[in-house]
């Protein structure tokens, strides 16, 4: 829903304040609908009572995102793309992170293909407490042979539970793939001006989501979408074309912006679908692999920032995937909720009753940076995490979210006093201002630590151990 107020939503609720949805009032429920923490289905009177039918219809229309949500795949690894409501993350948040699909080509020997598929499925790297993964496999009909394409689809299905994208412009090949993989709800790539009638029929017959492909031509894209819709196909993904960064790259980015703006700000239904890009085109230039992988990462990053909901990549090199995965993690962070860790006492290494106690905040990035610096320095210690509502040290200090009394509470609730014999607390350099306050309220002695956590190991070495501690 594009910028609807709770009051507008409220008009279409029963107004009973029955609390069945779990909210205290219909007004609170209206806000929850906007935040998407609740769904209209949670209002049972509205859904069940026939007399609210008109209201329900109107409400659904109001709360349906201007960019349709499309689901690819099934089961645990099914991926949802689209569903976006705003152009800029601060206006609400972005909801469904850009899905990253890696290609396999159907002319690979079966064992290589199986191996690549398995590697795509297994791929994971941990960052700031989140497991970053890939989202799907794009099977390219490179061989031109329908039987071969079918074999590749079989191999992918057997070796992975990930969402699949069947890529061919030949409807017959696509149908072979669909027959095999339809249970897995694959994405069909693609309907073009030339094949749209046949591909639309396939999408309708198999109930599979489909890509409309019209590189560089928005008008043509809309014609394809209209055609698909006229055949009853509603799960559509838009491909407006991707060009290597040294050619028509700029215009392909601007086309993506136009599509998203048309959907969200102009209410253009034909643009109201997820957008995809193919950074894999970086490999078309005959670049050496390292250069192609870097270019691919750059194209992908730019498209991710320009509203791409799905990207097809080739490289599985960590050096090129890590920046992209990190960018995705950053941009899709909900600005309404800073990423937090639990506020409690953490043990780093093997601390004992003489080990130092360090203090930090529950902003995830702060916590993980501090914890990894301490680990890297092989310091055994306790890390006391204070609930600063997800703020880093500096803003927490500025906003009075890190205070002596909060530290006092944290010490008491964490049970740290029964874990160590001493009463010395090392606080971040940027929290120096509240050291007196902490000492007065807790009776603990405060040592002001370094401003940058990378210097904690050296600090412990010099200030803690030389004190005859540890």
């Amino acid at each position, binding site marked *: 829903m594009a910028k609807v107020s709770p009051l507008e939503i409220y008009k279409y609720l029963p107004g009973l304040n029955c609390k069945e949805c779990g909210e205290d009032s219909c007004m609170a429920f209206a806000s929850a609908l906007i935040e998407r923490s609740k769904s209209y289905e949670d209002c049972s009177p509205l859904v069940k009572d026939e007399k609210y039918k008109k209201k329900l219809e109107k409400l659904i229309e109001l709360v349906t995102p201007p960019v349709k949500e499309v689901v690819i795949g099934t089961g645990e690894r099914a991926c949802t793309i689209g569903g976006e409501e705003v152009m*800029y*993350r*601060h206006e609400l948040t972005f909801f469904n992170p850009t899905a990253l699909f890696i290609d396999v*080509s159907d002319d690979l020997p079966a064992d290589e293909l199986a191996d690549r598929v398995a590697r795509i499925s297994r791929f994971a790297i941990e960052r700031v407490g989140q497991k970053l993964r890939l989202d799907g496999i794009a099977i*390219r009909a490179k061989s031109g042979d329908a039987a071969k394409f079918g074999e590749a689809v079989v191999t992918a299905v057997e070796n992975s539970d990930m969402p699949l994208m069947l*890529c*061919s412009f030949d409807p017959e090949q696509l149908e072979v793939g669909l027959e095999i993989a339809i249970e897995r709800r694959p994405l069909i790539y693609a309907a073009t001006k030339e094949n749209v009638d046949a591909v639309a029929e396939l999408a309708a017959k198999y109930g599979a989501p489909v890509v409309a492909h019209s*590189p*560089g031509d*928005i*008008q043509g894209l*809309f014609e394809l979408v*209209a*055609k698909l819709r*006229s055949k009853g196909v509603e799960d559509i993904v838009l491909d407006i074309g991707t*060009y*290597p*960064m*040294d*050619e*028509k*790259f*700029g*215009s392909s980015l*601007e086309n993506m*912006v*136009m599509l998203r703006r*048309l959907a969200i700000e*102009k209410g253009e239904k*034909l643009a109201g679908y997820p957008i995809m890009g*193919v950074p*894999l*085109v970086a490999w*078309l*230039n005959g670049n050496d692999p*390292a250069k192609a*992988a*870097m270019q691919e*990462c*750059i194209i992908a*990053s*730019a498209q991710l*920032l*320009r509203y791409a909901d799905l990207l*097809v990549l*080739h490289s599985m*090199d*960590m*050096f*090129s995937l*890590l*920046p*992209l995965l*990190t960018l995705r993690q*950053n*941009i899709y962070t909900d*600005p309404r909720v800073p990423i937090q860790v639990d506020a409690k006492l953490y043990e780093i290494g093997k601390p004992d009753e003489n080990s130092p106690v360090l203090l930090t905040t529950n902003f995830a*990035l702060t916590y993980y*940076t501090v914890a990894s610096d301490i680990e890297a320095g092989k310091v055994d210690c306790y890390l006391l995490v204070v609930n600063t509502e997800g703020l*880093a040290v500096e803003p927490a200090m500025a906003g009075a979210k890190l205070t002596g009394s909060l530290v006092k509470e944290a010490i008491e609730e964490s049970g740290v006093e029964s874990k160590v014999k001493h009463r010395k607390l090392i606080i971040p350099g940027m929290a120096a201002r509240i050291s007196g306050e902490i000492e007065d309220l807790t009776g603990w002695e405060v040592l002001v630590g370094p401003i940058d956590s990378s210097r904690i190991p050296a600090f412990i070495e010099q200030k803690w151990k030389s004190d005859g501690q540890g």
Partner: protein
Amino acid sequence: MKLNLEDIIKSLVDMESIELENVELDVEELVIQAKQAMLMPILQQLQPQAAATLEAKPEQKLEALPEITFEKPIKEYRGQVEEITLGATRSEGGSRGKVLKIGGQRTLYHFEGGWINKPVVSFDVFDIPQPQFPKALREAWSEVWDSPAEWAREAVKRGADLVTIHLVSTDPKVKDTPINEAAKTVEEVLQAVDVPIVIGGSGNPEKDPALFEKVAAVAENERCLLASANLDLDHKRIVDAAVKYNHNVLSWVSLDINDQKTLNKLLLEEGLPREKLVQDPTTAALGYGLEYTYTMIERIKLNALKGEKELAFPVSCGVTNAWAAREAWMNVAEWGPREYRGPLWETVNALAVMLAGADIMMMLHPGAVQAIKTIIDSIFGDYQGVEIKYEDWLKV
């Protein structure tokens, strides 16, 4: 009015054009009831396409697709970002061979028109060698870092639109280089290159105002960018120096849009002309809060175009901060070779701030700068490339 079939056909034949508003249903019936051939010539005359479809698939219902119109979604904005000039040529009292203009946007996106100036890239140059640099940066610059002038010259060769000379050694905690000596460094850099320059202080709030007074004087009329004024130092002295000697001032805050407004307002009240202010909301590294910077720049640009004058200035970003992320430089086998990873980290960081709306990117790695400049040229349509056949990706 009710017409029978013959009347309709007769009128169709007689008239040159006719509105076919309620005809769809009838057509279907006609296919069955009347002789299709009888109608065909008329339909062909009026709607050749529909007729062809009818002919090919007479069993299908004729369903006209909604008429599709596509107009570029261009918006009207009330505000405009101030246009800032960096550098001055001889005729203006300076000695630069090139003058750069930044900002001036009247729209958010290039396709809306109203983008007069491209974003530009500055290379960072330091007044002392930087042995603590990550390996990829040491390799790029260690041969020239003994001489800031050499370094600057090399930076221009590698594509810098402008050069930033950071006088970091003036910090009492670094080398406490005397202000007079720092001023000499600035003069050397000005002589070595003819692009506009940015002069960076050490960040020491006591020494920076005096430093800027001196370097502003030796670079009189060169229209440098003094980087930077912030809320923690005596910014009035920097503004006075900029006004007296004809320079621009960078208004730098730490990721807070209200602070940015406050500081910009203060600098203007102290007498800095609007066309001499550039702002820097702080660039958090990719993976370390980049989203805060990204969103803040977007908000600055959106608000500026909505007419919020206190924010309507070009944005400069210290993209070099990307190298603070351990993923950019640390030797971790799982993360892949760092000689690729580092430059890529900086490129992606630059890309994010640029797409959010940054006008100056201060950068360090030559490969990253090259990549960003290519993208800028591509977005602004200045790049003449070879057409590729996009569909070929299926066959790579």
